[in-house]
């Protein structure tokens, strides 16, 4: 018989309410006679139980604290505090029982501990709940906004601490890595050209760039991006072969620390792809992202004979321009510019030392109108002063404009630019125009495409002695064999000045991993 239940005031009220006063009087009399003995017996029991319980509870508290420490350590080792909190089991109570029950058999637990409900929406890890029995008992259903606010503040603090702990944990990396690569079979009938050391084209299997793209969220505002590329030579800079064939080397193509203040202002420092036109900042070093097997000649990398300063080392600011549905964005860059000492065979990107105090500047604006999804159109102006040895300095201005439409089924890329070199102190000006236009259409897993490109540099161009005229169509088809693997087959026909035209066939598998 439970004494406390019988003498419970609510039980007495129930008896009175049921109209049984004689029974109540009888019980009261019995209580008067027997109560002193019961009280003495109860007091003795309580003392004995408390001693045992204290020992057991202290021991179990130790185990519980150890368990909490272990869980906290496990939590920090998981993929992130966000995911831990979010991936907690559907039934918090079940989680708590599963983790605590082995150390705390339900039969031996204090009622206050085992009956303390953990609200279903509690953000607090269920395994920690038992160390706060008072909170759980006093307020088992934190439905009020005040309680929720308090819990949220605590949660945010806990989250911040955990994120900080995660970032300070040197035993694990904060890097995320994605790779891109391609392998090609290339053949063609390009003939040898002794003037440019161009050998006759052979049919070859060719390893493309192995691109390791890494990012890291250093903090909420700072982010790191890099692109490390392993590529085989030879490097060809302004028509001059500068590295041995078939030998792999490593290039750090992008190396950016970025601070994001808001959508209107992001500033970055390091080495990046110059914001000239569209293509250069859209596809970087990944062939898998590109529809075609390679970049247009205009946007070829510097060490593959391209005419543009594809990479810049310096600082760049990007962001939105408040413009409503017009969706205007800006790009403003200042950097070392391209290497301009003659002979132009050294590294074209001035990673560490600029050959002059003058800096290159680039400014661009582009629009992504809301009404025309997929459309981007804009322009950019790049200016630098090149300082060749034993020659007058050369002012370089690159004006580019683009209009592209990229939607799921089709894309249409159009870019045109003029590279203007004027020798300072002389009236000579060299304009090198170029453009390309590319169109493709998706049919299931297949995407046929067509591109026409053109660039025409004067024979006496002081910076591009090798480019001359290059133009011609390319046609091909891309087949997405799986989510992250694409097969491409492309035919190129190239027309050059004072040289035989030639064709090239390329079969390529591009992938990301």
């Amino acid at each position, binding site marked *: 018989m439970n004494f406390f239940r019988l003498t419970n005031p609510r039980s007495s009220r129930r008896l009175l309410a049921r109209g049984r006063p004689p029974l109540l009087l009888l019980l009261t009399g019995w209580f008067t006679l027997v109560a002193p003995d019961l009280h003495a017996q109860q007091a003795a029991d309580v003392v004995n139980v408390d001693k045992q319980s204290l020992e057991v509870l202290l021991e179990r508290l130790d185990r519980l604290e150890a368990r909490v420490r272990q869980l906290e350590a496990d939590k920090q080792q998981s993929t992130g505090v*966000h995911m831990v*909190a979010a991936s*907690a089991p559907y039934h918090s109570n079940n989680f708590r029982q599963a983790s605590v029950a082995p150390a705390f058999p339900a039969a031996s637990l204090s009622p206050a501990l085992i009956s303390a409900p953990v609200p279903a929406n509690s*953000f607090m890890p269920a395994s920690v709940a038992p160390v706060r029995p008072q909170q759980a008992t006093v307020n088992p259903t934190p*439905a009020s906004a005040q309680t*929720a606010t308090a819990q*949220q503040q605590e949660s945010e603090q806990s989250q911040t601490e955990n994120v900080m702990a995660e970032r300070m944990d040197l035993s694990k990396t904060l890097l995320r890595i994605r790779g891109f690569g391609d392998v090609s079979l290339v053949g063609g009938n390009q003939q040898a050209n002794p003037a440019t050391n161009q050998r006759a084209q052979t049919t070859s299997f060719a390893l493309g760039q192995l691109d390791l793209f890494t990012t890291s969220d250093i903090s909420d505002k700072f982010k790191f991006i890099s692109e490390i590329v392993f590529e085989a030579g030879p490097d060809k800079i302004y028509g001059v072969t500068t590295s041995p064939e078939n030998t792999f080397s490593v290039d750090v193509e992008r190396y950016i620390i970025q601070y994001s203040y808001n959508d209107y202002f992001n500033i970055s420092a390091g080495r990046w792809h110059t914001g000239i036109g569209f293509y250069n900042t859209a596809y970087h070093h*990944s062939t898998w992202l590109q529809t075609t097997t390679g970049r247009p000649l205009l946007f070829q990398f510097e060490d593959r004979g391209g005419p543009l300063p594809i990479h810049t080392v310096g600082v760049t600011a990007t962001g939105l321009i408040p413009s409503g549905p017009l969706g205007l964005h800006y790009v403003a860059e200042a950097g070392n510019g391209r290497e301009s000492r003659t002979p132009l065979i050294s590294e074209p990107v001035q990673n560490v030392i600029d050959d002059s105090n003058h800096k290159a500047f680039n400014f661009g604006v582009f629009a992504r109108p809301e009404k025309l999804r997929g459309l981007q159109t804009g322009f950019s102006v790049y200016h630098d002063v090149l300082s060749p040895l034993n020659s007058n300095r050369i002012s370089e201005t690159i004006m580019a404009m683009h209009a592209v439409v990229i939607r799921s089924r089709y894309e249409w890329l159009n870019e045109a630019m003029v590279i203007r070199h004027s020798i300072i102190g002389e009236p000579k000006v060299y304009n090198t125009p170029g453009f390309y236009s590319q169109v493709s259409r998706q049919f299931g897993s297949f995407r046929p495409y067509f591109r026409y490109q*053109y660039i025409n540099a004067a024979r006496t161009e002081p910076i591009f002695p090798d480019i001359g005229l290059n133009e011609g169509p390319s046609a091909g088809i891309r087949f997405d064999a799986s989510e992250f693997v694409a097969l491409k087959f492309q035919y190129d026909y190239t027309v050059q000045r004072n040289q035989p035209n030639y064709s090239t066939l390329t079969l390529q598998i591009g992938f*990301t991993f």
Partner: protein
Amino acid sequence: MGRLASLLIFVGLAALLLGAPPREGSPFTPCPGPEQTLPSQPLAIVVNRTNSVDDLSMSELRKVFLGERSHWPNGRRITLVMREPGEPERTTILRDVCQMNENEFKNHFLHGLFTGEILVSPKILATPIGVRKFVFNVPGAIGYLRLSDVDNTVKIVRVDELLPEDKGYKLHVEAARTGN
């Protein structure tokens, strides 16, 4: 003359490709219509309770879910919460907000992260409880829940000034796909 002929051929080909009608059953074709007539449940856009944003236009919502907006007006970074691929709620968001299929959505984020335009990829969570807890815990989070899964730990954002219960609300999960 030869160049002009090439350009004309190119323009003609472009017009032909761009003007062709979409093929039925293409993987890039939006989900078929008949299922949209089945009973549905409103899908609520939820944010952290401390978020001062109460209303988003569908256009703004699209930019948020595509990572084209990375910060809230108070400067806090937006953390996007998505359900796992194949979940009806995710399908609704991809179809009605992003107007993309699963592959396009993945490629969009892969491309955006690669170019640096998108700061963080979405957090993928398995259950509505998980979404609720995450949004509750992370001040900059935004996610989506069936209206029946929403409680007072998160805040519902109006979409085009409409709440999920309002007539004309655009986001609905098809009940037929839930298995309920």
